[in-house]
């Protein structure tokens, strides 16, 4: 947090010539801080539910009961699905699969994008050309089409899904990293570090990477939101994690044909998807404003 405060102060210092907007009343928090806190609260809620899913879920998600497509009641808060399983329990446990795939896949995409983006932006020349052209090929396909193709080729399983999502989002991450690196590497303090005799690896880690963290954090958060959407869409099409384990996209697909009879079986997973996606979008917007990403040249 102190780093953030410092960052803002630094930017103000730099843009001292800019006429200061004189606000008659100052709100105690900036809109970015409000968004950030809201996003973090939503994320914490989701994390707690996901981590303690087996303890929180009232029923075994695979347990069928006699009453199928039951309306919400004290026993089944969100009713039951077509073969009598508790919707709430499936929702809670299903989040686990979806969020696990999402977070691992985005982490992999981030790691790959970071390495490729730093290499491409910092080394430049032929290395840059080769890396960026290869990534352009991946980038040229619509995300969803590519995901379908890879999953269809490799077969739907959790590791394959993770791999697919990671491949699909790596080019975007690499681009987000490369852009600021291109400008940061020409800054004077990087040259100063080189003239001191610092090794290139150390220059990258100490002088380049810290300057590009903010846009990466924001991009990662946005990618998480997109990934949840992609994962659930793949699951909806039957390319998600294989059946016995519940997941949000799969629940939507199963419940679709009984939509008129039991609307809640569709609304519940849809709501969960919206909530998860929204969490990361709110978080990204809050981070964008608080970290002042726009000012990173």
């Amino acid at each position, binding site marked *: 947090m102190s780093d953030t405060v410092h960052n803002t102060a*630094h930017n103000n210092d730099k843009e001292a010539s800019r006429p200061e907007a004189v606000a008659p009343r100052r709100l105690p928090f900036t809109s970015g801080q409000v968004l950030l806190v809201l996003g973090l609260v939503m994320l914490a809620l989701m994390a707690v539910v996901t981590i303690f899913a087996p303890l929180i879920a009232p029923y075994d998600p695979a347990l069928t009961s006699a009453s199928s497509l039951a309306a919400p009641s004290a026993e089944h808060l969100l009713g039951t699905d077509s073969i009598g399983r508790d919707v709430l329990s499936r929702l809670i446990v299903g989040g686990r699969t979806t969020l696990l795939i999402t977070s691992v896949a985005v982490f992999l995409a981030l790691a790959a994008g970071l390495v490729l983006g730093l290499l491409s932006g910092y080394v430049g020349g032929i290395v840059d050309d080769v890396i960026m052209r290869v990534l352009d090929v991946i980038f040229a396909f619509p995300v969803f089409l590519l995901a379908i193709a890879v999953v269809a080729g490799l077969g739907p399983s959790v590791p394959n899904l993770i791999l697919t999502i990671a491949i699909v989002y790596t080019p975007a991450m690499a681009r987000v990293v490369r852009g600021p690196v291109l400008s940061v590497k020409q800054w004077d*303090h990087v040259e100063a570090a080189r*003239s001191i*005799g610092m090794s290139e690896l150390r220059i990258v880690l*100490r*002088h380049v990477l810290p*300057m590009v963290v903010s846009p990466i954090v924001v991009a990662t958060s946005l990618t998480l939101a997109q990934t949840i959407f992609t994962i659930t869409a793949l699951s909806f099409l039957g390319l998600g994690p294989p059946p016995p384990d519940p997941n949000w996209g799969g629940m939507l697909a199963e419940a679709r044909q009984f939509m008129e009879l039991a609307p809640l079986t569709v609304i519940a997973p849809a709501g969960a998807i919206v909530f998860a996606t929204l969490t990361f979008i709110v978080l990204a917007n809050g981070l964008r404003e608080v970290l002042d990403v726009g000012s990173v040249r």
Partner: protein
Amino acid sequence: MMETMRTATGETALLASVRDLSVVFPARRGKPPVTAVDRVSFDIGPGRTLGLVGQSGSGKTTTGRAVLQLQKVHSGSVRLLGEELIGMPSARLRRMRRHMQFVLQNPYSSLHPRMTIAQTLAEPLRVHRSVPANRIRERVAELLELVSMDPAVMQRYPHEFSGGQRQRIVIARALAVNPDFVVCDEPVSALDVRTQAQIVALLQSLQEKLGLSYLFIAHDLAIVREVSHDVAVMFNGRIVEHGSVAQVYDSPGHPYTQMLLDAVPIPDPAIQRQRLRAAPPDLDFARPEEDGSCRFGEDHRRTGTPPFHVGGDGHGVSCRSWPLT
């Protein structure tokens, strides 16, 4: 001590020696390659300062960066302490960097904004392992004192300091590893006039104290005259005149030097107004490809000498880049 060094600038006492240094920026999108630095040669003795002057775009900064091997060199030789730097393996070159340091022009951008002063100053010490880890703090305080700053500020960030203070920190960082040779690239041109004088005085006192050699790059002729022992005038990537401060300033031999000296404003409103009213000297200096024959009537192709005429007193003048009459 300084006086004895000044007189003893023989071949053996050279600290840095640059010969026929050329830097060529490759062709780009239909534009021809640019020769930013064209066969530049000069020597710097221990404890001496060579001032490098010239207008913007004359290749001063590129020369400085090329000498420090921060810029890819096309051809030529740069020897520091007797060792050839061009083509040196990068690991050895990194070790050599403790002998040569760089003070950049802009003190606002040459410090890492998210590192404290202590972290910034400790970096060269860690890189070269010149001080044991438990003594780094001590050395950082010592460095800050060396540049007349309070060691208590070491936990602060660069944005808390003024331009002059930051430039002191930049100088302290350059001196951290006890270099012999410092390239100062326009070290004061981003500062206000009073601060300029302080930084110049600091650089001079450090030279006396530590016996440093400077390559002092600047466009301000008055400051170069103040700090330098020798001066080289650059134009279009070439050194057109080279000599002691007295030789170059008092009896310039090249018309470009003369023009630079004439362009210095005179602090007398009446005279200055008169000068400005007169049309500016519109000298059209020859570009490299338009250079005709030698201005001093020598056939260089026959004699094989470089087109640079050095007198017995060491005052050299180029017979190239003269005005097209």
